[in-house]
């Protein structure tokens, strides 16, 4: 209402100034807090004491112009800085025609254009003529890797987001011709290289390795010229140019630094160190996210959890002193047992659903179904306001079953379940019909049929809803201790954090000594002595009263479920039983041992780690060395391992600089595919080039060859710049061999934690749950999750510790009510269910004389495999009883409602 009546149009900054809103507005429907706010700069009432229209029209009386800014004083034990990143200055963008040519956009603007709830409802149009472009160019490294604008670092995320934006655009407009201009393709995140390959193959996105110097406009088209590595000049015209702008430090970084009394680095980001990546220079002030350095969502989320862990360590003594418990009203059992009174809410999801499906028709149709007493449509069912109004309507109409016809239960069911709980209904009494994904999205071209299908789905959901019954929400006690598997940098960091938070930890290490891969490292990437970092860590772990260390030990079996695990650990032939509440997987990875490149045939061919070990022992072996050749991506990004090992580029650059330091006249040649020295490591890359290290790009179809000669070895490779094969007599060849997964298969079977195709453990959700695995109570960090630097391992270990202590601190875990239930009168004890259960959540127990299946409710994920395979139909699933599913299937036929 307030937005509607306000006479002051203001530029919509959320939509990157591509749209107009009014002084009182909400940025987007799912914003938190989900209330409207007034743009004080534009408001007539605030500036000129006139107007006041909005306050008069607000029916809730929620606009109060007498409010004044308040200063609050809070007493806290730790501060977490997470101000995010700042924008690259527009002056930098002007060089590329931004501001001068309307169809040169930033990637942020393009992101809004591709968004279904954005200014163009997801249609990609040129700003100049509102026409759909045919050719789009993405220019990378705008405001990154560019010393002329002061940003010498790499922003780390732009390569991947450009590929994502290009893919989204291609999905929307399949005929688009998209080219992305890269310097190096830096898709080093977990699974990113796969995504890039898919985008190139599936969508035909052109990858061009060139830096475009400027953008020119001719007749409304945007002209680009560039030079490729072979020296050829090219030019072409595009309809739209997207500038992939980098991440800068926040504009007010200086103020933050002053207020919080912390040090910044040379680029105005928060200064941290490799062994304590989340800790600022001031005790108790922590940092997470892009303010610590440019990073993507999974890493930001990881760091956020990690910072929370450190805060919990600092506040361990104060835990549970100021908790507030949410109380729910008692369930209205009488109402639940009444004849079903069903309410159907059909969601518009903005235009996501309503753009295709005739929501009003679906709503009215729902009204004709048996048992339905209320049928309504809502704009965004999941917004706070809508949830409140749904709750009120349920109460008013005494509903005891609710059907939400909207999006996926996977993402939104908990929200609606919570709403039911808040008004005294059992959360199991809500059913969802996914008319967004299954109608509006997949049948976008056929709105009528999509509407019919939506009606079918609603009818089926209503049929099922009539047979829903309340389910109990059991809780189980938690054993307040953790098992950390793996005693490397990640495992030790996680163990320390959990122990510092006041819980017992058992740290299991396969080898004789703690340390893992860190033992082999000589210098950290920021030049610290790795041995010292390791020594400090081991000392802390060994001296901690809460940590029990088992070396030479391996986990043989794990049984139980979140809160109540029992593991057997074998140590020197003896086995030991350990009870614990949670598990942290920190099993690490290992250096890939290469095949070919004369590795093993010649003592002049080493891996990067072997070089470090030699260098640590002294520079004697370099006495007669003139030429050193380094070869990147040996093993990685190839046939043996498809993933990028993320840190070998930086490691090579670091070691090259070290070689130059001890022997300045040595020639170093680095053969690479893409130099992936992301973030501030870009500085090392630049330093290496300045020091005279020669970098030569190769392509996977023309890999460098290491040739053994009667005396010494030489490397032959194709140099793209001169277009010829070159031969370098090498005194030393150093292979950047990357990181292979450890022996994860065995453990993966024991814990039932799935692996990726590359052999690393798979997280529960790449972005939102990066340190949890699919099995409850099991957490993940370090190289076991994927290749990463020491700094990232430590941050992730802290994050895993934060997540692991949640059930420990709560003391109880709630079990999802959708679990299997065995009717032991019918069960014949055949054991099929036990053998099939992927979560070890069903076991055979002796009941009387015979064995009967029994569900371990805390471990059960409700997948239903047991119920589907039970030969005597003795197993039923809470929330998915056979009767309810049958009713749902019968309802698929339009006149099936009565039958069911």
């Amino acid at each position, binding site marked *: 209402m307030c937005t509607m009546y306000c006479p002051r149009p203001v530029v919509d900054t959320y939509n990157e100034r591509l749209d107009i809103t009014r002084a009182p507005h909400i940025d987007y429907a799912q914003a938190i807090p989900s209330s409207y706010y007034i743009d004080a700069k534009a408001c007539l009432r605030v500036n000129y004491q006139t107007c006041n229209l909005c306050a008069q029209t607000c029916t809730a009386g929620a606009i109060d112009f007498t409010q004044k800014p308040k200063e609050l004083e809070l007493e806290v034990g730790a501060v977490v800085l997470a101000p995010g990143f700042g924008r690259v200055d527009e002056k930098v963008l002007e060089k590329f025609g931004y501001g001068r040519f309307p169809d040169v956009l930033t990637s942020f603007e393009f992101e809004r254009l591709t968004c279904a709830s954005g200014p163009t409802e997801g249609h990609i149009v040129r700003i100049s003529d509102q026409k759909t472009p045919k050719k789009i160019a993405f220019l990378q490294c705008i405001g990154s890797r560019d010393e002329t604008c002061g940003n010498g670092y790499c922003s780390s995320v732009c390569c991947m987001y450009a590929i994502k934006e290009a893919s989204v655009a291609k999905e929307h407009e399949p005929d688009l011709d998209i080219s992305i201009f890269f310097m190096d393709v830096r898709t080093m995140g977990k699974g990113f290289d796969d995504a890039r390959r898919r985008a190139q193959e599936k969508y035909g996105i052109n990858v061009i390795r060139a830096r475009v110097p*400027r953008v*020119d*406009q*001719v*007749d409304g*088209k945007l*002209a*680009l*010229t560039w030079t490729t590595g072979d020296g050829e*000049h*090219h*030019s*072409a*015209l595009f309809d739209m140019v997207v500038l992939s702008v980098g991440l800068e430090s926040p504009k007010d970084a200086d103020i933050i630094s002053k207020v919080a009394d912390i040090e910044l680095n040379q680029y105005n980001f928060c200064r941290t160190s490799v062994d304590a990546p989340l800790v600022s220079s001031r005790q108790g002030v922590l940092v997470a996210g892009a303010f610590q350095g440019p990073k993507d969502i999974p890493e930001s989320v990881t760091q956020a959890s990690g910072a929370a862990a450190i805060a919990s360590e600092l506040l361990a003594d104060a835990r549970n002193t100021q908790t507030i418990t949410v109380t729910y009203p008692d369930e209205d059992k009488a109402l639940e047992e009444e004849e079903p009174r069903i309410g159907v809410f059909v969601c518009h999801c903005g235009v996501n659903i309503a753009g295709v499906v005739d929501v009003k028709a679906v709503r009215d149709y729902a009204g004709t179904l048996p048992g339905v007493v209320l049928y309504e449509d809502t704009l965004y069912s999941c917004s706070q306001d809508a949830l409140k109004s749904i709750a009120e309507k349920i109460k008013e109409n005494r509903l005891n079953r609710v059907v939400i016809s909207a999006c996926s239960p996977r993402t939104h069911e908990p929200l609606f379940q919570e709403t039911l709980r808040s008004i005294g209904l059992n959360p199991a009494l809500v059913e969802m019909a996914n008319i967004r994904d299954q109608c509006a999205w997949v049948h976008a071209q056929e709105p009528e049929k999509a509407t019919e299908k939506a009606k079918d789905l609603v009818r089926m959901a209503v049929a099922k809803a009539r047979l829903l019954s309340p389910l109990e929400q059991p809780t189980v006690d938690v054993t307040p201790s953790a098992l950390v598997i793996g005693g490397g940098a990640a495992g030790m960091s996680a163990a320390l954090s959990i122990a510092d938070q006041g819980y017992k930890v058992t740290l299991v290490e396969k080898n004789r000594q703690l340390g893992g891969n860190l033992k082999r490292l000589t210098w950290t990437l920021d030049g610290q002595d790795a041995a010292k970092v390791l020594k400090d860590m081991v000392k802390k772990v060994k001296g901690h009263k809460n940590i029990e260390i088992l070396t030479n030990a391996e986990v043989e079996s794990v049984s139980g479920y979140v809160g109540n695990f029992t593991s057997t650990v074998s140590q020197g032939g003896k086995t030991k039983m350990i009870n614990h509440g949670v598990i942290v997987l920190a099993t690490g990875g290992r250096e890939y041992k290469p095949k070919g490149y004369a590795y093993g045939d010649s003592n002049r061919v080493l891996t990067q780690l072997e070089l470090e070990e030699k260098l640590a022992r002294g520079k004697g072996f370099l006495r007669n060395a003139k030429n050193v050749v380094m070869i990147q991506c040996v093993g990685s990004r190839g046939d043996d391992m498809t993933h990028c090992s993320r840190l070998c580029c930086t490691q090579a650059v670091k070691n090259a600089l070290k070689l130059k330091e001890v022997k300045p006249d040595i020639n170093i040649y680095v053969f690479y595919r893409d130099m992936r020295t992301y973030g501030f490591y870009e500085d090392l890359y630049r330093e290496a080039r300045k020091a005279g290290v020669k970098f030569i790009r190769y392509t996977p179809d023309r890999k460098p060859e290491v040739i053994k000669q009667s005396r010494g070895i030489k490397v032959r490779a194709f140099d793209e710049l001169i277009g010829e094969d070159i031969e370098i007599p090498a005194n030393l060849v150093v292979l950047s061999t990357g990181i292979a997964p450890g022996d994860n298969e065995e453990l993966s079977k024991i814990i039932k934690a799935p692996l990726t195709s590359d052999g690393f453990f798979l997280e529960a959700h790449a972005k939102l749950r990066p340190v949890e695995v699919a099995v409850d109570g099991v957490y993940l960090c370090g190289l076991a999750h994927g290749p990463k630097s020491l700094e990232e391992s430590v941050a992730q270990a802290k994050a895993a510790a934060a997540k692991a202590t949640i059930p420990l601190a709560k003391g109880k875990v709630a079990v999802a009510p959708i679990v299997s239930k065995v009717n032991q009168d019918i069960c014949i004890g055949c054991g099929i269910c036990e053998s099939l259960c992927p979560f070890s959540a069903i076991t055979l127990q002796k009941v009387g004389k015979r064995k009967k299946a029994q569900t371990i409710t805390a471990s059960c994920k409700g997948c239903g495999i047991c119920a589907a395979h039970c030969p005597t139909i003795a197993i039923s699933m809470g929330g998915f009883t056979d009767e309810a599913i049958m009713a749902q299937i019968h309802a698929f036929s339009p006149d099936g409602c009565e039958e069911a």
Partner: protein
Amino acid sequence: MSNIKGFCCNYTLSVDLDALKKEGLVPEGLEIERLPCTGRLEVPELLDAFTEGADAVFVVGCQVDKCHNLSGSYRASKRVKYAKKILEELDMDPGRVEMFFADRGETEPVVEAARVMSERASN
């Protein structure tokens, strides 16, 4: 189709002529000669272009006050003026030769010039 000959200095026109032709932004019969500086153009060269079959000839140089070589484009403009005079004497349309100016690296003025000259040549 008329033949147009353009002389451009190194600091104008950043886009390849072929790319422009491919998009149909410039007349098919356009030929461009790139010079380090238009200041080195002599009148005979302008006239030779006509002898070699051009229907119209144009020169694009830097803005007079921003010439990379200080006075190059000014010199060129004077020579174009002189060439116009000669065309007049030969009873040809002096508009068939023209001087244009462009900002650094700009392609649009060159394209615009080619279109103007193509128009004049077809009249």
